[in-house]
């Protein structure tokens, strides 16, 4: 990862969402992006330029654009039409972003388009996030990494975030993943946890 005086940046064409530039590189704000927050907390895995990434919940493509700066190709899955319009615009300017309009909980919809990936990154606002992650593990290569951004309030707004979290971890483990690390994303994001797993 590229750090300039404690600021996480990525190298690529700027002006995607009005992000700040720092000596020619795009500042990756931890308060806007959960993945950036993860790196600022000293966790996460190194993104390299030979990596293939499946990104579930791509939304407007802001974090996607940063990931694409680091990696070989990003398969960006998003379901809602309005964010998809923005994502398409990002994909038009970035040759290594493949925009896929589909429901992340139905991987069969986009299975023919994909290939084996090194990193599965998931940031979806759905109640059953563990199941979605497990269903998409079919695309993850053996030894590949899953970074699950658990939005506890999307699982159940009224339950304690800690309980939602402790429910999710064993479910991932029983699906053939080994949980390597986890962290809450405070102070950057509230009630969001990151779970990092490796496919056995």
């Amino acid at each position, binding site marked *: 990862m590229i750090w300039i005086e404690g600021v996480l940046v990525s190298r690529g064409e700027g002006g995607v969402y009005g992000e700040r530039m720092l000596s020619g590189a795009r500042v990756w704000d931890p308060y806007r992006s959960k993945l950036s927050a993860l790196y600022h907390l000293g966790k996460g895995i190194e993104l390299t330029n030979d990596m293939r990434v499946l990104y579930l919940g791509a939304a407007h493509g802001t974090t996607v654009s940063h990931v694409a700066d680091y990696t070989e190709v990003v398969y960006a899955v998003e379901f809602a039409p309005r964010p998809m319009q923005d994502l398409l615009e990002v994909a038009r300017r970035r040759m290594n972003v493949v925009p896929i309009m589909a429901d992340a909980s139905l991987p069969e919809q986009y299975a023919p*388009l994909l290939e084996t990936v090194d990193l599965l990154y998931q940031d979806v606002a759905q109640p059953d996030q563990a199941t979605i992650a497990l269903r998409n593990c079919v695309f993850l290569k053996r030894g590949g990494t899953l970074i699950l951004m658990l939005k506890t309030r999307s699982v159940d707004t009224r339950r304690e975030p800690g309980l939602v979290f402790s429910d999710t971890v064993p479910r991932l483990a029983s699906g053939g993943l080994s949980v390597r690390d986890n962290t809450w994303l405070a102070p950057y994001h509230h009630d969001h946890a990151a779970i990092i797993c490796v496919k056995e």
Partner: protein
Amino acid sequence: MMQSYWFGDVEGGTCQPFSGGAADIAQRILSRHTSIDHYVPPDWKAALDCGFCRDRADYISKLRAVCVLIAEIKIREKYKSRDTELLQMTRTLDELDTVINLLTERVVEWHQVRQPSFSRKYRRTPTHSLIRMIAQRSGGGLGRVTGDIERLSETRTVLAREVSARADVVMPNCSALIGGLVAARLLLHAGGLEPLARLPGSAIQVLGARIALFSHLRSHTPAPKHGIIFQHRRVHNAPKEIRGKVARVLAAKLAIAARLDFYRGVADLAFIEQAQIRIDAAGEAP
């Protein structure tokens, strides 16, 4: 076992490339059903070996073209649903109301400062006449803003007519029961025709009375009798004692009407007539 991918079919290591342009591939993907049970992710080199692409960059660029096409087709499909634009129109209409009210209040206060003798006490001047009066008598910023309010009001009238007309088309049965404008507001609060069609009558009855409903559920204040449907004349004109009853009957009929609108999309005249009779009967004094 044969695997079907976007670039072609692969069986036993040999690939049969799919001939045709990006648009053909997009249509093929949209019409295909892949089962995830026996799915094996493709190796892009299979596409290279059978001559589908020149190199990795070519593979990705062809794939991107297909995916962008698929996304554009799907976006167009999503927006084509009849209620999408009506939702935007209704939202704009309600926001126009808010803006007009806010500005009117402000302008009247401003005018009051300029005219020490001005007061609305003992006068029943309708707001629009007041605005016209201020617009005629004031110059400068105040006159301009007041003029803008008048123009916004005209825009609002035109838009309201459009919303009503569109609602008659999008939700003919609901509109027949409560009028296009109120029907459109119901649609807005439910978030679309499909969610509205899935709501039970009891929910439609209190749609838009969220604060009252939750205060009832939390601290047992009296239950709300009506939400948006209060704006319909048969509810707000009914005597207070039977207003709840009228709202309940109307909401139950609306629930059926919404389903007719969503699943059939055309007016069911027999249903509308029966429902009107039933609602009118509920409104008659016991």
